Each structure stands twice: as C-alpha cells, then as structure tokens.
C-alpha cells in the first residue's frame, strides 16, 4: 500500500495521487498540519525537511518530481526509451517551475499594490504566454488528448493536477479568472476535458480542497 504524506490538500502531491489512481494502485493519505510538520522536521523522516513523502515497500521517497519520475518509470508513464520523446515530457515538466514561481511571487507578496500588479501580470501576460506554448504542443502532437505521444505520461498527471486544483475547482475562489483565460485556447480546453475523462473515477471520489 502506497502512503502519500502531505497536507490535506492537492498541492504538489496531487500529480502523484492522480498517477497512482490511474494505475489502480491503492494508496492512503497521511495528512499533516503545520504543527505536525514542525514535529516531523525534528525527526529524520523527511530528508529535505519537506513534504510530500511517498512510502512504499518499506522505502521512503521525497521531492515530488523525483517521485513522479519514479512512479512514471514503474507504471509505464515515462517514455525514457526514446530520448527525444522523454525530452518533450521533461521540458514541459520543467516549465512548471516558472509558472509556479510567478504564482507564488504574486500570492505571497505582502504589499497589496504590488500583489495586484503581479496578479495582473500573471493573468494578462505570463499565463497566456505559457498556455499558447501548451496549445502549440497539443496541436502538433499525434493526440490532442495527451501532451506527448498517444498515451498518458507524467506530464499529463502534472497538467491535470494543475487544471483540477486551480482552474476547474469550485473550491478555489480564484478559479473563474483562470477558466476565462483557458477558454481562449481551444486545444488546451479540449485537452483538459479529455483529462477529466481520463481521470474521472479519482476526480469524482477525492477530497475537496481549495488548493
């Protein structure tokens, strides 16, 4: 049984949960609060003093992207035999860090004026630019239901995690703006619909969370 250690939220654990569910691998959530995380940091449970952590077969794994790659190799979601196909997956995965950084920069800015400006930049420039790249990738891919190749890969779980945590999530108060931006990118919108279908069993039964 896989154990996913994280907060009771989607965050950086959700791509792992989506993958495990898709692969029909039962898993248990081990939930942390800020307090229990502070306690855990005092032990040697968390190698980098961070969540998420995945436990299985007596071993512990940390760093969400490393875990995603590990599970991807194990369950056939990472096309590593073809260096260029793997590159197409890896380059999209890496591009998340810039999008994530832009979100964090805006969300955690203590100055109200600056925060407003950063969110405006995110919604008017940064996200549309990134979505345009994703749109281009989809249009030139052999399938428009997957980002790379004809079947589910780790980048699809990462994209789905993003889509169903931030955009198509009624519990996220900021979702409306994002839905509107995505609607300008038809292939991307259709892709997210296809991923909703691909992951529907898990999406129907998972916990509600605003992030």
């Amino acid at each position, binding site marked *: 049984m896989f154990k996913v250690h994280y907060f009771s939220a989607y965050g950086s654990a959700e791509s792992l949960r989506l993958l495990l569910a898709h692969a029909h691998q039962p898993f248990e959530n081990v939930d942390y609060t800020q307090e229990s995380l502070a306690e855990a940091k005092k032990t040697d449970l968390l190698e980098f003093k961070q969540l998420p952590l995945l436990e299985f077969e007596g*071993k512990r794994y940390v760093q969400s992207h490393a875990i995603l790659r590990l599970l991807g190799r194990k369950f056939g979601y990472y096309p590593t035999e073809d260096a260029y196909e793997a590159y197409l997956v890896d380059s999209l995965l890496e591009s998340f860090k810039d999008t994530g950084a832009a979100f964090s920069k805006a969300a955690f800015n203590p100055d109200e004026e600056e925060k407003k400006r950063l969110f405006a930049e995110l919604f008017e420039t940064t996200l549309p630019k990134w979505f345009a790249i994703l749109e281009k990738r989809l249009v030139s891919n052999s399938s428009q239901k997957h980002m790379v190749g004809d079947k589910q890969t780790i980048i699809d779980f990462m994209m789905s995690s993003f889509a169903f945590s931030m955009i198509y999530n009624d519990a996220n108060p900021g979702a409306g703006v994002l839905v509107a931006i995505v609607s300008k990118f038809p292939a991307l919108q259709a892709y997210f619909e296809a991923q909703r279908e691909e992951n529907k069993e898990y999406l129907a039964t998972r916990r509600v969370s605003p992030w």
Partner: protein
Amino acid sequence: MYKIYYLDFFGRSECMRLLFDHFSLPYTDVVLTQPDLQALKLEQGKLEFGQVPVIETPEGAFLCQSLAILRYLGRKYGAYPESDAHTAYLIDSTIDGMEDYINHFFKYHMTPQDHPLKSELREKWLSFSDTLFSVLEKRQPKEAKYFLGCENITIADFALAAFIYMMVLNEANPHYEAIKPVWDKHEGLHRYAEGLYELFKTRFESRGKKPF
C-alpha cells in the same frame, strides 16, 4: 557541433558544458546580451519558452529547459542510468534538491537589503543549505569517484560539479562568506568535490570568474 545560447553566466548552462567536455563533444558558446536575447525571442522555433539556455544540436534541433537538456544528453551519452530505479530516483531527487537551493538562494539574493524579510530569507537559505549538504553527505560513499558510487559518471556529477563550483566554492559568488562555513562542516563531501574539480579542471581554470 553543439551550440549553447545563454547569457554571460555559468548559471543553468554550466552542467551541459561539463558534459560536453567529458564526452569530448565540441561546442560553441553564443553569449547573448539582453538585446540579442530579445532579438532571438522573435525568431521562430528557437526559444520555445522565450528563455535561455537553449542548445542547438548538430542536427539543427533547438532544445530548451536546462534540466530537460541535461537529461536528454544524459540518455544519449549513457550518463543517466534509469534501469536501476532506485539509483535514478536518487539522481533525480538530488537534482531537485539543488533546484530548491537555487530558489532559496535567489529569493534571498534578490530581496532588497532593507526589506523586513531579508534576514528570515537568509536563515531559510542557510538552513536549507545545511539540510542539502547533509543529504549529499549521506548519499555519497566516502571513497567513491562518482556520485552514489556509480560505476560511470552521471548527470548528477555534472549537475553537482556545476553547482558546487558556482554556488558554494566560488569566491566571486556574492554570498561565498556565508555559505563557506556551512560547506566546511560537511567534511564527508570534500573529497568527492575535490575529485570533481580534478575531473573538470580544464574548464574551471579557463572560464574566468563570474558570480554564478
């Protein structure tokens, strides 16, 4: 011949240079000024994400995102042992750990001196550094030449060599004085790091000084 397009830093391109040197793959550096970068962004099909580094392969393909490039080259030249799942995981999580370090470092570095969070960010960076070096020390067998005691060089060695000699053991780095004592505590890493210096001596001694 490979071409690396980047700004005038070691930064996210250095790990690729070390790989090219190790496998005796000729390459050229196209060092961009800001105006050059803006012009390149307008050319179709070169900067997919509008960013550098990108490499141009001998076949004329443009590849972007430094760690995706490193993995691509690693697979191509036998420096990414994915057949052993646990070794691949340790390589991947080590690379992820270095990414976290870079985030903490630049968050601290880019915050103005008079900002109220400046000293908290410094603490977070230094604390994470200690954690990262502890992880590396635990993972690296003392007498081994390559990271994790792998038989052959891997992308972890290229990434670690680039990282250590740009972010830690680099007197031109703006925060060298702060990080050096943290590094000194982790003696188990010193021999490995010295070995890396020897491996890439030609590059390290000819590249001049840059802050990172």
